[in-house]
Each structure stands twice: as structure tokens, then as C-alpha cells.
């Protein structure tokens, strides 16, 4: 049995009266490529935001490499409002902030590209290297971090080269074409040296050929950096072609889990995507 990297237990995320993610439990094992799919508004990105600490889940536990990152139980105002299940299962409140979670080894990309727009491609990647900096602020101010800076630049250039962005390394990020911006997001996430990479719709807006290239790229990333990949995607060609396992959610609830073949033939999934067949 492979070691599991990421584990979600009964995670529920509720905004006011809306339950965006409902009792979601899933496991991602080391070295796997896992996809999370579902119709629009199913709560996929919300699930990602819970994992990375952007949102505090209303109930449930999320652990990474066996260490609990986030745990919550309905408290305060949510005690009355809570509409999910397993309300009494968790008792502790543990909340790590997104930067701590990134330092633990989870990096992500964003569905609606969020680059540092005024900075160059190289600088964007360097920001992700910043958390490994050992030189203190005062020493940097006195210009004593030059050696470390040079090493950092070299390292950042490696990620940039890997993603095929070396000829635009000094361009301002906002001026890049859309596809390259997506690549830069991945380069930046890789520079955070994660063990688990979360990709939020990496193929959004790409044509079939680019999607095929991306598929190859994701495989290469996993093999070269020894990563585990967890992604949200709508392109079924990509999802079916690359995933080891797929989780399907609809209205925040998990409706299926399995290999691509199993998912393709699952009646609940077909119903969620195409609607129920009307009975005559």
C-alpha cells in the first residue's frame, strides 16, 4: 500500500447557508496523479482553497504526510447554522496559514491566473524561492546576500528552462501570452519545491494540441521532481489520459471514485454531467 500524502476526512465548507463542500473524504497517495472533476459550481476550487488554507473548513480534518494541517468543528455562529454531517466528530481547531502550508510542501496554481503582474517572469519564480532565504533583512539591506541571491537566480532559471520560458525570462509577466502565463504559474509553484502539486484547471483555454502537450508535461513534472499531482480539470481527454484515479463531486458531495474506465461507465457520473435519463 502506497503512503498517502494528502488526506481529507469529512471536510465540509459552508458559507452562510450554502454548503459548498459537503462531507468530502479523499486520499491522495504518493506519486499518483489524481483528478478532481465535477460540473461547474460543484465545489472543486473550494476544496482546493480548503486544502491550501485560504478557507478554513467548517468541519473536518485535512492532513498532509500524516500531520494535521487543518481541523475544525462548527463553532461560534456556525454551531446553529451548520447544515452538514458529522458535526460532533472533530473537536480541535487547528489552523495553519497558507504560507505555512506551502512551506510544508504543498504548492498550487490558480484557476484564474494570479501572477505578480508588474514583475518579470524570473522575479515571479524568485518570489517562490524567497521562503528558503537564510539572509536576514538587515544583512540584505547591507548587501550581504549577493551569493545566496546568485544561487537563487540560477535555481529559478532551471525551473524556467524546464517550463520552456527561458527566452521570455525578463518579460513582464502580464505581457506574456495566455498559454505562457499558465506555464509560468506552474514554474512558480515548482520553485516552492513542493511534494504535492495542486493544479487548478491547468488546461483551461487551451486547444487540443496544447492539451496533449500539457499531459506530457504533467507526467514529466511528476517523474522529474518526484511529485504527487492533484488537479482539477474539465478537459476529459486530459483527465482520462493521465489520471491514476478520479474523484467526482457534484453539489459538494462525492458521487464517485475510481479509475478512468470505472468513472466513464459510472451511471451517477453520467447523470451528473448529462442529466438523468427520463423514464418513459
Amino acid at each position, binding site marked *: 500500500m502506497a503512503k498517502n500524502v494528502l488526506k481529507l476526512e469529512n471536510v465540509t465548507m459552508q458559507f452562510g447557508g450554502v454548503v459548498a463542500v459537503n462531507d468530502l473524504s479523499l486520499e491522495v497517495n504518493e506519486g499518483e496523479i489524481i483528478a478532481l472533476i465535477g460540473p461547474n459550481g460543484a465545489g472543486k476550487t473550494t476544496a482546493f482553497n480548503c486544502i*491550501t488554507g*485560504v478557507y478554513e473548513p467548517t468541519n473536518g480534518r485535512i492532513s498532509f504526510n500524516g500531520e494535521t494541517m487543518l481541523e475544525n468543528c462548527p463553532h461560534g455562529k456556525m454551531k446553529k447554522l451548520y447544515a452538514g454531517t458529522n458535526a460532533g466528530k472533530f473537536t480541535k481547531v487547528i489552523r495553519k*496559514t*497558507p*504560507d*505555512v502550508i*506551502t*512551506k510544508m510542501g504543498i*504548492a*498550487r496554481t*490558480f484557476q484564474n491566473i*494570479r*501572477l*505578480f*503582474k*508588474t*514583475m518579470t517572469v524570473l*522575479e515571479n519564480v*524568485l*518570489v*517562490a*524561492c*524567497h*521562503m528558503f*532565504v537564510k*539572509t536576514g*533583512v538587515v544583512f*540584505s*539591506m*547591507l*548587501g550581504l*546576500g549577493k551569493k*545566496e*541571491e546568485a544561487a*537563487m537566480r540560477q535555481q529559478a532559471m532551471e525551473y524556467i528552462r524546464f517550463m520552456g520560458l527561458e527566452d521570455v525570462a525578463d518579460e513582464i509577466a502580464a505581457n506574456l501570452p495566455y498559454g505562457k502565463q499558465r506555464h509560468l504559474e506552474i514554474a*512558480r*509553484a515548482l520553485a*516552492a519545491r513542493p511534494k504535492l502539486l495542486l493544479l487548478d484547471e491547468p488546461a483551461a483555454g487551451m486547444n487540443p494540441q496544447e492539451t496533449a502537450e500539457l499531459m506530457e508535461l504533467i507526467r514529466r513534472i511528476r517523474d522529474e521532481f518526484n511529485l504527487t499531482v492533484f488537479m482539477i480539470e474539465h478537459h476529459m481527454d486530459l483527465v482520462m489520459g493521465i489520471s491514476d484515479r478520479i474523484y467526482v463531486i457534484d453539489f459538494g458531495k462525492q458521487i464517485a471514485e475510481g479509475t478512468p474506465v470505472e468513472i466513464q461507465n459510472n451511471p451517477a457520473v453520467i447523470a451528473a454531467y448529462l442529466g438523468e435519463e427520463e423514464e418513459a
Partner: protein
Amino acid sequence: MSKKKKNIINICLLAALFVVLFVLEQTLSGGSMLLTVLKKGAIYALIACSMNLLNGFTGLFSLGQAGFMLLGAYTYAIFTIPVEARADVYQYFDGGIIQFTLPVIVAIILAGIVAALFASLIGMPVLRLKSDYLAIATLGFAEIIRAFMMFEGLGPITNGSNLLKKFPTFSTILFPFAVAGVCIALIVMLINSSYGRAFKAIRDDEVAAEAMGVNLFKHKQTAFVISSFFAGIGGALLAMYQSTVQANAFKSAMTYEILLIVVIGGIGSITGSILASFLYIASSEWWLRFLDETAFIGSFQVPLLRSGFRMVVFSIIIMVIVLFYRQGIMGTREYSLDALLRFFKNLPAKIKSIGKKKKGEDAAASEEVQ
């Protein structure tokens, strides 16, 4: 041009600047407007750069600059008044309770440290606020500090609402230039370091910065404390320039002045802040002075020119800048030797093209007439 060669040329330019300043000081009389502008401009340049570090590079809209300057100015003044003069300065408070003096440089650094200390205390609650709320909170803090400094109960230390005076000032114009120069160099070094990039990342996108492992609070706090440190030093220099200090002078209007300099220079450009501060000080102290004085042409009194009109003109300039030149002088560009050379190389062509355009227009107009 190689990097080494460029560095040498830059150092030569810097040395030339100091030589020019020295010569100016030797040749011009003490009351010369140019010297006054240069002195005050250098001090404001430092303070504007410190504000730019916070507002322009880290994206924190803070309006507490006057408060930190006040802390710096007071710290400097309190610790450098000679012991013999204390009885006279603190005449209502039996000579005050501090009966020792510190060397000037130590007092200046202490001024920065005191401002930084206060910043770290205030930063804890205040930096969790966003945009406008942060501005209001910091503005409020600056006003509280000002009121607090005038509190009679603190008289033995701060001399209450009375003037602090008789502390050492600078005798040469090179002093404020040297101190401001060193401080600005430190700020530039910080901005170009990994921390500077993290600050810019926070400005561009907080969520993404945090997702890339940048601890938001820690970095905002760092920027806030460092900015305040240099504002404190700027305050100490300002105290030396004015040779007296009174809390009442550090009103929020002072913060707005500096904000104006930052905006005119370009939010996110240190070079812009420096240029703009000299320009601003020169116009407000010198070039636009005539607007405040009633003038006569023959026996005809020029309308509008009277005390306070300068401020009206200033407001109009600000509006024009905000409406049409939002980028300021420099935008986010910085000084580099290449850019400077290119600028001078293209200058004749530019002037020519303006001339040509005019001629072209004239020609077109005359054709139309025919």
C-alpha cells in the same frame, strides 16, 4: 559598457555632485534660496523614499509618516540638547529630567530606532487592516502621538507644548546629503533583495504571495518598521534643519505633502521620489512664492495674487497630475546610466520633432488658408 565601467562612472557622478554642492556652499551666501531648497529637498527625499517603500512597494496605504517623523525629531532633540542649555529650554519643568547628551550620530540612529519601536507596536493590530482602514488607523495614530507629545504631564521629557531648541544642527549642506544618501542606498538595497521582491509580490497579489510561502504579516511588519525607522531619521534631520522642534508642526498636512511627492515622482520609483521632492520643495519654497505676494504692474494690482493663493495653484497641479499623469515623473522606472545616456542622446531629436510638428502644423494651417 561593462558593469564595472558603469559603476565607476556612477561613482564619479556622485562625487561630482558632492563637489558641486561644496562649491555652491562656498560661493553662495548662507541665506541663499538654492541652498535652503537643496537641504530641505534632501531630507524630504529620504522621507518620501521611506513612504514609497511602504505605499509604493509593499502596497500598504499608510498615512502615519508625520507621526514617525515627530518621534524621530523629538528623540533627536531631547537627547542632544547640551546639559548647560537644558535649564533654559525646559524653563517650566526645572530643566527636565534627562541630564546627559548623546553624540549627534548616535542620537540620529536612536531617533530611527524609537520610531521603529513604535511602528512595531502599532503594526501588530493595524497591519491586519486593509487599504482605507489602514490609512485611517495610521493617520489616527500620528495625530495621537502629536497630542501625546504636547501633554503637559510629559513635560520633563518633551517640554510639553513648548519649543525644543538649542540642540546641535548641521553646519554644512553635505551632512543631510550624506545621511539621506546612505539611508536611501540602504532602502534601494532592500528593495532589490529577495525581501523587496516579496514586498512587491504582496502589493501585486496578496493571495498568490501567501500561496507562494510569503508570510504576509511578517513581511508587512518588516516593511512598516523599516519605513518608520527611516522616517524617524528623516524627522531628526528635519529637526536639525529647522533648529527648533514643536509637535504642532507635524500635522497630517505634512504627511500629505510627502504623499504628494511620492505620487508626483511615481508610486514605486525611488528615483521619482528623489526628483519630485527637490521639485516640490523648490516650487513650494521658492518658485511659486510670488503667488503669495501681492504684485503691481504699474498701478494695476494683479488679481488673485495674495497670501494662500499658492495653495490653490498647488491643488490644481495635483488634480492635473492625478487626472493626466497618474504615472508621475518616473512611473515605476528607476535611474540607470544607460537610460540617462539614452535620454540625453534622444533629447535633440525630441526637441527637433516638437519643432517639426509645430512647423508642420503651421504649414498645414497656411495651406488651409490658401
